[in-house]
């Protein structure tokens, strides 16, 4: 009886393995074609168009103060953009806050150009928004530089710890957390590969290419936009733009990618 039972178990296991192998074959072939698809998109990233517009916006006097953004300090000194995005988010003494590139940009639009917070952020999520254009331009200025998110300041370390906690925080009607989809190797939603953010290499490959042109959206998404939409897909409510929950997650995710060479703007599904 026992022999028979284990024999059956082996039989079932064998059946499962065969099925799994067939599935892998088919999936492997599909993934190969998708790689080819992505390859064909690499040359000619429409994000470059938004980057060009961001560059123009950077030097255009705007707002009640008719000022440009050229005096904005992203942490490496007034007006210094080269490599700045690779070291964000970071703590800024003048706002006593840990800020990401978008939050800092809005600070400058308010302080230098005299815009209200509402004016500066009103259309952040719309296709080809001024904010997305500026973020794309600023990110491209870190091309070739390693990600180095500072955590030495007490507030930076705190945001990092909160970001890690948030990454694993399950709630909502689907019991989801970031970790549900992003904490194992080689996983996919349908055919979409999911970076495992607990793995350094995966985190690096993902983080160096935000902001990115999303072909499914026909426009560039910033990292805040990406995270905000993950919340939507988890069936959570929408977090406030520039809120600490998003920035904390960015600190954690980009810290996971420490040392990776920036290659933004990217192009993604």
């Amino acid at each position, binding site marked *: 009886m026992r022999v028979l039972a284990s024999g059956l178990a082996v039989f079932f296991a064998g059946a499962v393995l065969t099925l799994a192998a067939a599935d892998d074959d088919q999936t492997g072939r*599909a993934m190969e*074609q*998708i790689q*080819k*698809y*992505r390859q*064909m*998109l690499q040359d000619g990233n429409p994000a470059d168009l938004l980057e060009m517009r961001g560059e123009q916006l950077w030097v255009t006097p705007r707002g009640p103060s008719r000022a440009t953004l050229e005096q904005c300090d992203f942490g490496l000194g007034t007006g210094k953009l080269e490599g700045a995005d690779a070291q964000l988010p970071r703590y800024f003494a003048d706002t006593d806050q840990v800020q990401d590139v978008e939050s800092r940009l809005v600070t400058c639009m308010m302080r230098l150009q005299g815009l209200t917070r509402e004016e500066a952020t009103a259309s952040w999520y719309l296709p080809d928004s001024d904010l997305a254009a500026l973020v794309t331009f600023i990110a491209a200025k870190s091309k070739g530089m390693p990600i180095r998110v500072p955590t030495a300041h007490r507030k930076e370390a705190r945001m990092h710890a909160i970001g890690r906690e948030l990454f694993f925080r399950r709630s909502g009607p689907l019991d989801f957390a970031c970790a549900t989809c992003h904490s194992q190797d080689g996983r996919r*939603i*349908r*055919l*979409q590969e999911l970076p495992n953010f607990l793995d350094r290499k995966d985190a690096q490959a993902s983080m160096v290419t935000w902001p990115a042109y999303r*072909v*499914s959206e*026909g426009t560039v998404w910033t990292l805040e936009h990406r995270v905000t939409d993950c919340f939507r*897909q988890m069936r959570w409510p929408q977090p406030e733009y520039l809120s600490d929950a998003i920035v904390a997650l960015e600190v954690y995710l980009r810290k996971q990618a420490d040392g990776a060479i920036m290659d933004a703007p990217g192009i993604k*599904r």
Partner: protein
Amino acid sequence: MYPGRRKFVKQTGGLIGLLLAAGFVRTEEWNRIAFEGKQLDDVIRGLGGNGAQESAEVVILAPEIAENGAVVPMQIISKLNKTESIAIVVEKNPNPLAANFSIPDGTLPDIQTRVKMAQTCSVYALVRAGGKFFYSAKEIKITQGGCGG
């Protein structure tokens, strides 16, 4: 539907006139009939042919699976002598003709662009060479990516 040609001219006559004078724009008119065709045959007729012959000399380089139907990259190469134009026709789009490229002397019959595909279907590359139409077809699968919502 699309604004009529007359409206088009009225709005932009001045600009187009200037561009024409500068030699930037040819005097061609957008081929409404071809672009509004619903079948491959309609498109061929709209482009001035009647029927097309399948040809291995027309090559479609494209992935078999596209991660998103909004952007499907493809390269069309014609090895036929006297290639005059290359059109891309997406079988199951509401209006199948996506683009038609005129290839003047001295330009290689080798075009890359990106088109939208509403669903998995055949893509036809339709080439006019020496006054006749030739085509080849390739099926491209459109997958549902991401979280599905």
